[in-house]
């Protein structure tokens, strides 16, 4: 792609927002802390939202039950980290990382497996019927949430961070929590992997082509349904990963967390344009930054700020910042 063809305007939104609020916040060190926190939160939201936006773009399936996989991932992480207590307690960074990585792996596997079942039993019978999809996936999420309550109990469970990831680095006056840097790093790795898969592999090519024009890809002889199952499972697994990171970020998990994060994700993919991965990244970063800035400046309007952000973006580009053609 030629550099001149790239649509730079949405990319500029993120730094623009960050620079605009600097005078409002005043102190640069507070601003830096908030910005890093916002980027970390945005990266986690992106990990969760990327799967959902692809599922929608590829198969026109609107999955309102995506939040279930977030909660599932987080709850699996509490079990895994709880079982690896001597790893999380130890001060050695590599043992902490090993614990968190295995928690992530197990959470992704479980969320992916449940995603496979969810696709088979909940989503597949209602392809092409938006109304029913919304109703059914909503019902699926409620069932899942209740089953989580059966297994782990309805109460809030603490998800303490491993020793080595606590504390913060001092950068001048600004305190930056270590975990937030880790979250940003993981998010970047996921984004890089996704971008590479989508841009450089055959599967990615098919996915992108399917998002643009499903029928054409099918008529060329590719089984887009099978591809879709794969995307759904990967999307669920990513939501599980995001759930682990979100749980560690909040340091506690509740069964209702899926529904809470769901709202944020919807805002993100509407801002980004349904089906667009790059748009989801921009939307997620904007939402993450906005949530942290308004949480500092005016906590009471924090949730409304995201809706206002969405309204503003949609007034500018009614299909989201990166509209996917043919939708």
């Amino acid at each position, binding site marked *: 792609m030629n550099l001149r063809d790239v649509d730079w305007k949405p990319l500029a939104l993120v730094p623009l927002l960050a620079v605009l609020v600097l005078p409002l916040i005043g102190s640069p060190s507070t601003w830096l802390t908030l910005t890093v926190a916002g980027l970390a939160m945005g990266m986690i939201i992106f990990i969760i939202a990327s799967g959902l936006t692809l599922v929608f773009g590829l198969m026109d399936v609107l999955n309102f039950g995506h939040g279930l996989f977030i909660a599932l991932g987080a709850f699996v992480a509490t079990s895994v980290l709880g079982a690896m207590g001597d790893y999380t307690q130890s001060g050695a960074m590599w043992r902490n990382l090993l614990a968190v990585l295995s928690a992530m792996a197990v959470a992704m596997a479980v969320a992916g497996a449940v995603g496979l079942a969810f696709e088979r039993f*909940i989503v597949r019978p209602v392809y092409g019927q938006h*109304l029913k999809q919304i*109703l059914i996936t909503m*019902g699926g999420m409620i*069932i899942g949430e209740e089953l989580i309550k059966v297994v782990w109990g309805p109460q809030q469970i603490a998800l303490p961070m491993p020793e080595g990831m606590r504390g913060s680095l001092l950068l001048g006056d600004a305190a930056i929590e270590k975990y937030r840097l880790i979250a940003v790093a993981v998010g970047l790795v996921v984004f890089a992997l996704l971008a590479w898969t989508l841009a450089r592999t055959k599967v990615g090519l098919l996915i992108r082509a399917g998002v643009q024009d499903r029928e054409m890809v099918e008529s060329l002889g590719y089984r887009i349904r099978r591809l879709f199952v794969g995307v759904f499972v990967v999307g669920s697994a990513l939501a599980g990963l995001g759930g682990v990171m979100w749980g560690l970020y909040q340091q506690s998990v509740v069964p209702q967390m899926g529904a809470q994060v769901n709202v944020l994700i919807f805002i993100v993919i509407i801002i980004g344009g349904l089906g667009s991965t790059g748009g989801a990244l921009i939307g997620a970063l904007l939402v993450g930054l906005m949530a942290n800035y308004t949480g500092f400046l005016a906590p009471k309007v924090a949730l409304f700020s995201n809706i206002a952000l969405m309204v503003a973006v949609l007034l500018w580009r009614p*299909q989201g910042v990166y509209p996917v053609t043919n939708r």
Partner: protein
Amino acid sequence: MLNRLLSNDYPRSKVLAVILVAIFIGLALAPFLFPGVKALSVAAKVLIFVVLVASFDLLLGYTGIVSFAHTMFFGIGAYGIAVATTRMGPTWSALAVGLGGALSLSLLLSLAVGLFSLRVRAIFFAMITLAVAAAFQTLASQLSDITGGEDGLSFKVPEILSPSFEPFDEPFLGVTLDGRLLCYYLLFVLAVVLVLALLRVVNSPFGRVLQAIRENEFRAEAIGYRVVVYRTTSSVLSALFATMAGAMLALWLRYNGPDTSLSFEIMMDCLLIVVIGGIGTIYGSAIGAVLFVVAQSYLQDLLRVGSEAAASLPWLSALLSPDRWLLWLGLLFVLSVYYFPTGVVGRLRSPRASR
């Protein structure tokens, strides 16, 4: 006469007609047929849900758009009554002010949400309403100076509607005629009027256009109907009816808080009732509401019995615990969307076609 009242929309099935008449008579004579405080509360809840669900059906069943903000308008109605009577005392003018304020707030809010999100894409509407409803719920529990926060507001209603008002010493047919009874009948009349009004709306030329949009948006636009205008009007109307239902709830409970009128569970209940009763039929909401509210009020008791019976199997007992009733409701919901897509009314109207 009947023709005009029902707006020419007869049940079109003998069984359905019998059930509807039975429900009508049952609700009309509920205080005399089913004495007791719990039974009367269940009957009042049925009345409120009939209106709430019928108004939701105008949006979901007739216009074909999914809104998750319906409980928000329900809550606005309930909070309108609650806030006004807390501030101005238990007078009729307070009720009027509360209802008027709530209706205008709902009007503005639904107009804003509708014009904004229905313009873009119908599919956005579901997501945007979900976000707005979540934000509103947070707001209602944070503005504790006005709404009472998480604790909610307890308030008094005009004397004639309160339980302490007892004009007659003698019980009538074994039932004491008190303010509670008057309140029930006020709700009953309101519910009947509102449901008939909704029947009028969906059977008017306007309602036909809505159904045309539901069936084929592009064709409706091509014939010359402004789809956005019709959709927005439909969502505003449905919001106003939901506000009325919320006001009825507040009047009956004499209390309102975030969990009673704004919780997401009520939204789920609405969805479930619409699906069970039959999408796109106002009558369905009446049948669904009766089935659902009665089941809900007694399902937890049933689950408790089941849970105790299965005490020897801990996992089964955990599944059957009364706290997990939403699990069974969710399963019921998914199964009814699959196997029962036309609901009770659809089944009764065309028993052969659905087989």
